[in-house]
């Protein structure tokens, strides 16, 4: 089921599109980025000097890697969702689910294999992109930025957490459209909850309401916080003041909320008639 889901995700086309776009970016980087040997602290992009590494305390390589990292996050949320959000509802279609449930698999195995397959489709794409960028910077600029390479693990982890929301929504609504829509709503809500003290708290000055927002923040995967932290693994941009330090806390909280959501999904799937 795992292999089948990955194949189905690829056949849907969105992941292939993502793969093609990632390849184009990698080719452009390969062709465009260079490190003149006579000026060891200079990085050029298609011959244009970007900045001197030592100037204004800005590390150009890190700056570029952070931008590429942010781009990949944007892509997984936009296209990753389109690529795999429909995989849970498509499994539940009449005529398909009957066949799957008649096989000697538990419902938990079936659902988890499906979710794992969907997440793997995205993970393969992300690994390809991050590994490609890492190799290009290593080979062409001479910077083997291990922190950048390791940040992909955090991004994949964040996507696994994100997909727990997609899974339960897909199970309840059985609709790919709803799953995609609610996944986007969740990504916005996650951002709203992350900055609730400066935003949602101000809508209503009520302790119960504030505690409710807090509960929601801790009971759902902290997508925004995780993705933000995954960027901080690479480095901090000096022109963005008050950037907090990297912390594992959102990953730990999200582990519990994600586990809860997957458990609820399995429970719901196991009880449901098809």
């Amino acid at each position, binding site marked *: 089921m795992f292999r089948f889901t990955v*194949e*189905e995700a690829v056949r849907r086309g969105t992941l292939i599109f993502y793969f093609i776009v990632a390849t184009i970016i990698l080719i452009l980087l390969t062709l465009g980025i260079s490190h003149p040997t006579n000026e060891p602290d200079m990085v050029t992009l298609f011959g244009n000097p970007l900045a001197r590494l030592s100037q204004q305390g800005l590390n150009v390589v890190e700056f570029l890697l952070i931008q590429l990292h942010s781009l990949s996050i944007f892509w997984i949320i936009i296209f990753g969702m389109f690529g795999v959000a429909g995989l849970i509802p498509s499994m539940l279609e009449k*005529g398909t689910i009957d066949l799957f449930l008649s096989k*000697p698999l538990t419902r938990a195995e079936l659902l988890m294999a499906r979710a794992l397959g969907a997440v793997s489709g995205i993970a393969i794409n992300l690994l390809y992109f991050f590994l490609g960028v890492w190799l290009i910077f290593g080979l062409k600029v001479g910077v083997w930025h291990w922190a950048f390479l390791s940040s992909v693990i955090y991004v994949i982890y964040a996507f696994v957490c994100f997909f727990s929301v997609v899974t339960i929504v897909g199970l309840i609504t059985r609709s790919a459209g709803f799953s995609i829509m609610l996944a986007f709503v969740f990504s916005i809500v996650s951002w709203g909850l992350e900055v609730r003290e400066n935003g949602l708290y101000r809508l209503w000055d009520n302790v119960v309401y504030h505690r409710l927002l807090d509960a929601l923040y801790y009971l759902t995967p902290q997508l925004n916080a995780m993705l933000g932290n995954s960027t901080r693994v690479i480095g901090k941009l000096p022109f963005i003041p008050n950037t907090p330090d990297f912390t594992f806390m959102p990953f730990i909280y999200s582990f519990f909320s994600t586990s809860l959501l997957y458990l609820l999904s399995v429970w719901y799937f196991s009880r449901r008639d098809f």
Partner: protein
Amino acid sequence: MEAIQTQNLTKHYRSGLFKRKNIPALEKVSLSVEQGEIFGLLGPNGAGKTTFVKLILSIVHPTSGTATILDFPLGKRELKEYCGYLPENHRYPGFLTAENTLVFFGRLNGLPETNLKEKAHALLETVGLKDWAKVKTKKFSKGMLQRLGLAQSLINDPKILFLDEPTDGVDPIGRKEIRDLLLSLKARGTTIFLNSHLLSELEMVCDRVAILNKGKVVRLGTIAELTTQKLAYVLQLSSPVTKEIREQLQQTILPIEYNNTSLVVSLHDKSELNRIIDILRAGGIGIESMNQQKTSLEDYFIQIMKGENGQ
């Protein structure tokens, strides 16, 4: 030995806002299916036929009642290793070829990789899709998908085969091939549970049938038991019945149908048959043969349904 045994198997669906509306789908169904027999389940749309199969395969959960399948209780995962299932309106991933579809479902059944492709090819040959092994299923017609579905249901050499409308969309030659396949599976000891609207086909292959209406079993028996009208006889005569003899026969007050040299008579009592024979022979009409009248399963089914629905 029973392959399937159910006791008071009941399923009520809940629907509507807050799931407050109760929809009974099956009501206390108690059935037993012997190993190696072909058992047919008939019924109008919404009678509960598919729900029954889905309960057995744990695709839906029972509201109450119990069942054992090959001595396994309902819901036991191991049970499904011995079952094959062809659902109605089944869908296969269009991006897979016929061969890969069977390999995929073979893997889901936990079959070892060795010989899985060979097995898939052998099954595709059995269902007449040998030349289509490498073609993606999205190019298949309905009849071809039905054949593929049948092959899929056989990939694990099931001891019990559940088929929901197996000949749906299949041409007459294909239907005959499927019937022959079912009979050969039966000869090998496979128990076959068949849901179908095509009563004439059920009549040709089933050992026993149950008629389901509004979730309840209303009739159960062998085809012969259900289609033989015990007190109706067909008499083949040596010559047509003359007007005089017809008048004498009408005095018996028995319902009689005339058809040139044959005569169908419905009796209240077997002794009445002698009176009819006496009248005919006295009139010089010889009796060439005499058989109990049989109705088709379809006629019987319609008759039962009319009775059940008070028409």
